[in-house]
């Protein structure tokens, strides 16, 4: 159809083929130019484990030999996570050290992960990273997760804070392991926003007239509405009809002020297009480093929502031992600190704090004592039955 006018004669056709071939060769050549990253691990199994154990620094515990050897056999790790989130080195270092290949796929939202599980309970990923408690709850209801073998995770046992293993939805962290946590907040641009109410949620949810079309909300109904619930003083996982009716009114009033729904409106905030954005406290750290004009408010006195990033191993995982090695690897204090420092989240292990960059430690220090503990978690009430129904209705009305 389109080509009709260009490919009239045979000669053109052949020339086009030649051209297309050159283009393809160019494309195929691109990857070839890049340095080959993969290297074979040590050959003999026994020495490999010894070598691995010997290579560990102080305070880093090895996975048991059994796990290591099984991992060597499996040789691969399929990770399903957010795009361009964790630093590349985390993956490449692991690949090098364990001699396995990491294959990564990205999801764009947590509901996408849940939906994929609903469609295919045997999803063949070894590791799902960065999902929140409420997604874990939904996933656990589908009975698609593998029980985690904590004997294979000495670093986790040694370093994880007890408060992160005692959640009601998964006591003893049998199916999910925290990788990090944080809190919701909002960012504002000091160039445009000057409001005495800072750091209250009110700045975001009942904004001044002049902020019309300058506000962004997170494109996720649970997170977005959790902010509103917190502002109104209700539990963030409420399924109370009256409370959610209030939320609805609040959100509908807010609608004309909303410029866009964007889960990570980094660009909008930095460009000064969005003046007030709902976002996490940790992301705020990154943004503040990029542009001093973007400041993060830790919503007080209302409190906020606890955000959680969890690691899961699906039942269909073809390489569970590598997945355990991975979790254990992430819990090395230096690795934890490097990860959290790069992406602006709080580590769940005290031991890693000392390895955090200075500015980051300061950033976390600004969070008032006891603030995190006061934050609510979106739990079962919100993600099933009435809670889900009411939220969906508000969300659809808001976005349509």
């Amino acid at each position, binding site marked *: *159809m*389109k080509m*009709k*006018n*260009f490919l009239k004669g045979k000669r053109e056709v052949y020339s086009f083929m030649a051209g297309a071939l050159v283009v393809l060769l160019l494309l195929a050549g691109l990857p070839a130019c890049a340095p080959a990253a993969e290297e074979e691990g040590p050959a003999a199994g026994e020495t490999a484990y010894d070598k691995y154990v010997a290579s560990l620094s102080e305070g880093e515990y090895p996975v048991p030999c059994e796990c290591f050897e099984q991992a060597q056999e499996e040789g691969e790790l399929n990770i399903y996570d957010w795009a361009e989130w964790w630093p590349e080195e985390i993956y490449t270092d692991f690949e090098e050290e364990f001699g396995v290949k990491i294959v990564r796929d990205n999801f764009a*939202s947590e*509901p*996408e992960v*849940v*939906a994929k599980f*609903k*469609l295919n309970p045997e999803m063949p990923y070894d590791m799902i990273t960065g999902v929140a408690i409420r997604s874990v709850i*939904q996933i656990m*209801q*589908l009975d698609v997760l593998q029980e985690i073998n904590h004997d294979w995770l000495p670093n986790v046992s040694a370093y994880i804070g007890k408060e992160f293993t005692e959640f009601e939805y998964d006591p003893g962290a049998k199916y999910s392991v925290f990788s990090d946590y944080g809190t919701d907040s909002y960012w504002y641009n000091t160039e445009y926003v000057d409001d005495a109410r800072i750091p209250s949620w009110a700045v975001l949810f009942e904004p001044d007239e002049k902020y019309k*079309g300058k506000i*962004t909300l997170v*494109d996720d109904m649970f997170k977005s509405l959790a902010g509103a619930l917190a502002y109104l003083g209700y539990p963030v996982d409420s399924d109370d009809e009256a409370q959610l009716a209030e939320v609805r009114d609040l959100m509908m009033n807010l*609608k004309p002020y*909303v*410029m*866009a*729904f*964007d889960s990570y409106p980094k660009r*909008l905030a930095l*460009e*000064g*297009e969005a003046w007030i954005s709902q976002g996490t406290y940790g992301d705020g750290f990154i943004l503040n480093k990029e542009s001093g004009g973007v400041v993060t408010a830790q919503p007080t006195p209302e409190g906020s929502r606890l955000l959680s990033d969890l690691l899961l191993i699906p039942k269909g995982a073809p390489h569970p031992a590598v997945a355990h090695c991975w979790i254990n690897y992430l819990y090395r204090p230096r690795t934890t600190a490097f990860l959290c420092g790069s992406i602006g989240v709080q580590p769940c292990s005290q031991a890693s704090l000392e390895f955090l960059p200075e500015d980051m430690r300061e950033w976390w220090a600004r969070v008032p004592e006891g603030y995190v503990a006061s934050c609510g978690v979106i739990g079962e009430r919100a993600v*099933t*039955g009435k809670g889900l129904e009411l939220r*969906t209705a508000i969300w*659809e*009305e*808001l*976005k*349509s």
Partner: protein
Amino acid sequence: MSSSKSVGLREKAAKFLSDQVYLPYVGPISIWILLFVFAPLGVVLYFSFLRVGPFGQILNSFTLEHYRLMLKPTYIQVFMRTFVFSFGTNIICLLIGYPLAYFIVRCGGKWKTFLMFLVIVPSWTCYLIRLYALKTLTGNGGLINEALLNLGLISSPLNILYTPFAVVLGLVFGFLPFMVLPIYASLEGLDPSLLEASEDLGATPLKRFFTVTLPLTKGGILAGTILVFIPSLGEWLVPMLLGGAKVMMAGNLIEEQYIKLGNIPAGSSIAVVLTTIVVLIIYLSVKMGGEEVLERMM
């Protein structure tokens, strides 16, 4: 005629086989279409009548609930918007695509190919990236606003991005080539002396245009309309990226139900309604414009 019965049968079988010579050619596509078009669409139709459990599991019991839910004001609003946007996009594409095609055909010769090439090449670029580029351009700090501000034409940045206008702009941006192509083809198929005549007769060239050229290119316009209107109806990336995810169209509802909420029956029911509408429109336009339009689409 003295042949025995068995010979007759064998002949019949041979004849039957030789009558099915078309099978190796159209067999593969028939199987493919049956397996990967009719079956999935059938499954979607079936699922759209199933009940959903508390955790989003699909239950094996029949319900019309999802279709009833479609009568919600929010859904009706979204469908209405989808129509208005698609229709508007179509009209705008026609209004700017026709003169462009006319201009290109009139340029003639080498220029014609080059100018057409300029229309097509942008559509070879990754659609997502093009939308992203448009986003960069239309933002408050984007080139357009900056230029207007510097020229002193406006005092504060225009809000273009994340408005319904941006959505229509994105749709036009994405689908304009599909309007220009068939119109160009039908204009090019015209006797060039007709174009000249409609200009040289002096007295009422515009009238001549409306009485001669336009009716003769009706086929191209109809084809262009189908090529623009249909994909607009199902579009979801533009509203998400340029509409800031707050100006939903029908496609977004489907994506949200399928992917975000994992509610397959609800998503299926929306898909069924949207598909029915699209197929109906195609059917009607084929009936109206005849087979000719269909041929032109190829």
